């Protein structure tokens, strides 16, 4: 099956209209030696029923753990049904980028609403229509902060390793220098940061909460960065922003982050959602699409892709980024999620995540041999030592629980609003059992 609707007769008719006999005539400009003279070495095509069998069989080889206590950049939150139903509407799913404003006010307005919501969460003045994910958003932020004089990017060593590595790659591309600020007690080492700040530094990136789950002293870090004349970039988890101070309130110049917690399932890593927001002062440095409000020729309010002079299709090699698209459907997902939970709901999700994680932490660290590795305040992730780590995790997995992620020095646990007290108690019970053996 190839989704070609026409019959052999219709195709013959069309070829005939062109004065051709055969499909080969269409490729007469291709040097003969280059045409494939044998079938592709892939299996024969299948009917829809056969395809569903084959792909379903693949999915069945995965284990879906009903209880997920692992985060590290991908979080298991409850996704309201309205979210899934809206984003599966065929119009939203199959439409292209809204270049023709008269035909696509639905998409443009939904992006404008998304931009507004991201500004509300982060306290910033302008947000773009989204980028690929949180890691590339951090990398794009580093790029937007660099200029002729300042070309060094500082990144906290307490950030997610995938983020650090992505920023490193983008810096490598730009022939710019990246330095990692050391970690002390699970947080950015303030003294080390101060020693590394100088007139060459364009920006410093910190993750809040950081990879180890710890709350960073964002305001103090930001103040040090600004004193050195550099820009302060914060990578934030949006699920915290109903109860945690916004990046703007902490003095950030640019706020970025991973939007996956806002209605996107774990999906083995993607598709996810990067968001970027900044102050009015830095608006024209922001890469990616931005939707703006205007009026039409009859004065009716409408929305358009705006400020396009920043972008690749206008500036080509002078563009600050090559980014051409966004993650539109994922941005819509986030908008529906944020609208479904609302302000009180988002705060409640945040509160429950914190509550469940602290409950789990208390119960686990009451067990012999299980100790907190980093003792600062945390949101919903924490690192403990864990004796017999492999055995414990295996026992948990056999009981449908994906335990914390093994990291250096211990295990990085996570609990979200989705986990019940019962599941948490069961987890602790199993850990206790294995440790007691």
């Amino acid at each position, binding site marked *: 099956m190839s989704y070609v609707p026409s019959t052999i007769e219709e195709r013959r008719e069309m070829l005939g209209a062109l004065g051709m006999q055969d499909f080969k005539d269409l490729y007469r400009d291709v040097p003969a030696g280059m045409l494939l003279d044998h079938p592709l070495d892939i299996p024969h095509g299948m009917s829809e029923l056969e395809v569903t069998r084959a792909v379903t069989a693949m999915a069945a080889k995965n284990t879906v753990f009903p209880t997920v206590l692992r985060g590290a950049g991908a979080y298991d939150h409850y996704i309201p049904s309205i979210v899934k139903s809206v984003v599966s509407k065929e119009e939203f799913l199959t439409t292209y980028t809204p270049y023709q404003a008269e*035909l696509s006010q639905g998409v443009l307005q939904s992006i404008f609403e998304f931009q507004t919501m991201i500004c509300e969460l982060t306290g910033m003045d302008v947000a773009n229509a989204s980028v690929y994910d*949180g890691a590339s958003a951090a990398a794009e932020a580093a790029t937007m902060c660099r200029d002729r004089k300042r070309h060094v990017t500082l990144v906290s060593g307490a950030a997610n390793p995938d983020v650090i590595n992505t920023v490193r790659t983008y810096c490598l591309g730009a022939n710019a220098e990246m330095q990692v600020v050391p970690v002390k007690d699970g947080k950015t080492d303030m003294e080390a940061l101060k020693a590394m700040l100088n007139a060459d530094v364009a920006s410093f990136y910190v993750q809040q909460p950081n990879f180890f789950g710890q709350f960073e002293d964002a305001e103090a870090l930001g103040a040090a960065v600004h004193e050195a004349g550099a820009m302060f970039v914060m990578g934030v988890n949006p699920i915290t922003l109903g109860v945690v101070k916004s990046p703007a309130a902490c003095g950030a110049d640019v706020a970025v982050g991973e939007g996956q917690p806002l209605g996107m399932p774990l999906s*083995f890593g993607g598709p996810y959602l990067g968001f970027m927001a900044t102050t009015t002062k830095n608006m024209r440095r922001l890469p990616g699409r931005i939707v703006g409000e205007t009026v039409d020729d009859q004065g009716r309010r409408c929305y*358009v892709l705006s400020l396009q002079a920043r972008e690749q*299709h206008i500036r080509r090699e002078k563009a600050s980024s090559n980014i051409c698209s966004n993650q539109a459907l994922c941005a819509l997902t986030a908008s529906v999620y944020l609208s*479904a*939970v609302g302000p009180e709901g988002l705060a409640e999700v945040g509160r429950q995540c914190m509550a469940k994680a602290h409950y789990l932490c208390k119960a686990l660290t009451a067990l012999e041999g299980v100790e907190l590795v980093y003792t600062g305040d945390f949101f919903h992730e924490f690192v403990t030592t864990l004796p017999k780590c492999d055995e414990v995790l295996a026992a948990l997995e056999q009981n449908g629980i994906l335990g914390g992620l093994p990291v250096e020095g211990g295990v990085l646990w996570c609990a979200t609003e989705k986990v019940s007290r019962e599941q948490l108690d069961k987890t602790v019970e199993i850990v206790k059992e294995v440790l007691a053996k």
Partner: protein
Amino acid sequence: MKLIFEKSIKGHHLDLLPACDVETVEVPAALKREELPALPEMSEVELSRHFTELSKQVFGVNVGFYPLGSCTMKYNPRVDEDMAALPGFTGVHPLAPAYSVAGCREALDTAAKYLCEISGMDGMTFQPAAGAHGEFTGVMLIKQYHMSRGDTARTKIIVPDSAHGTNPATAAMCGYQVVNIASAPNGCVDLEALKAALGPDTAGLMLTNPNTVGIFDENILEITRLVHEAGGLCYYDGANLNAVMGVVRPGDMGFDCIHMNLHKTFATPHGGGGPGAGAVGCKAFLKEFLPASALMEGPGHIQVRSFAGNFLVVVKALTYLLTLGCEGVPKAAQNAVLNANYLLHRIKGTFEPAFDRVCMHEFVLDLAAFKKETGVSALDVAKCLIDYGMHPPTMYFPLIVHEALMLEPTETETKDTLDQAAEVYRKLYELGHTDPEYMHHAPHNTPIGRPDDVRATRTPVVRWQKA
């Protein structure tokens, strides 16, 4: 349409979670948020209606003919969506233990195998999330390759002036100087211009074939040979792969690395601008430079985004490839080319093709003479098409054709649709001569007319604000 914030009513909400069953904990005072963010407050019925209202002002592939040149708006099969929604895929954490994600690994490996076969490559990554992201990855393979050889003299990337804007932007992002070479009058690469641009400072060439005017460059083997001779590598922009998949392979054209747009050629939905996937393939000697995730695979590789990429998008493309199989892949390409040539044939005699010859999967109309005659521009024609229930084609691209309209019908359109579309284009050609004024103010039948772009840029309003 009212904004969602304008429909918000205090106290309206959904009941999504039970009360917290454990003791609550306070955010440390220094980090506590003072004011809740001004998100909308709505019930589920109000949400349902708001997004339905928005969806009614969206033109999807399910609505009508969508011949956007270079975008390959082919039909997005429903079964691909169902497979990507399987809980066995959506419920899997990227950092779950290897034994528990065997199905994900099989899906990625199988997709890689098939795409390597189609493209003539030896290695593949699905980490890039979009075409431009794939371009960045591909050019970084070239950069790492030259770095590994200690060759620091290669500072330039050659790009034809017909290239998509992402190509030079990508080269700049990778620290290269861009050398633009003028295309020959037939729209293809000017071999003399290429020879003049090549040298010991050439890192590589970025090219798409068929090119952005829908023509297969018959000199392609010579082009890639010349670049290799100068010590550079050849990068293939796979945006136009739909014309030749299963018929010709980029690997056989002499390319060293490529990106493919799974959301174009392999039928995954565009979603309004993403998520897509820019799969990047390479020959064996470049495999060591492919990106990987620090968390999943450990350090030592470049990385362009977290984890393994847009996994669910790969599942959709895989489902599509399993459906098409070895016969369906070339069949799709051949019919994409047939449909484009047929549509061009039916329009001929009215709007002028930029290049009067057999095209590949897309063709460009040159409205410069038409505009001179009637005063009606390519933009006016595009806006008029909206009133006929058709999505306009790509406008003003590539830059080497003035007043360009680029049409790519794809293989999933019926002959009837093509006949009807041709009729509309012929009608508009006549209308340009009889009533140009009407066309200058099109569209007439849409909820909004032409927006004031200038005002949007001069006085940016980029968010809603509480009064």
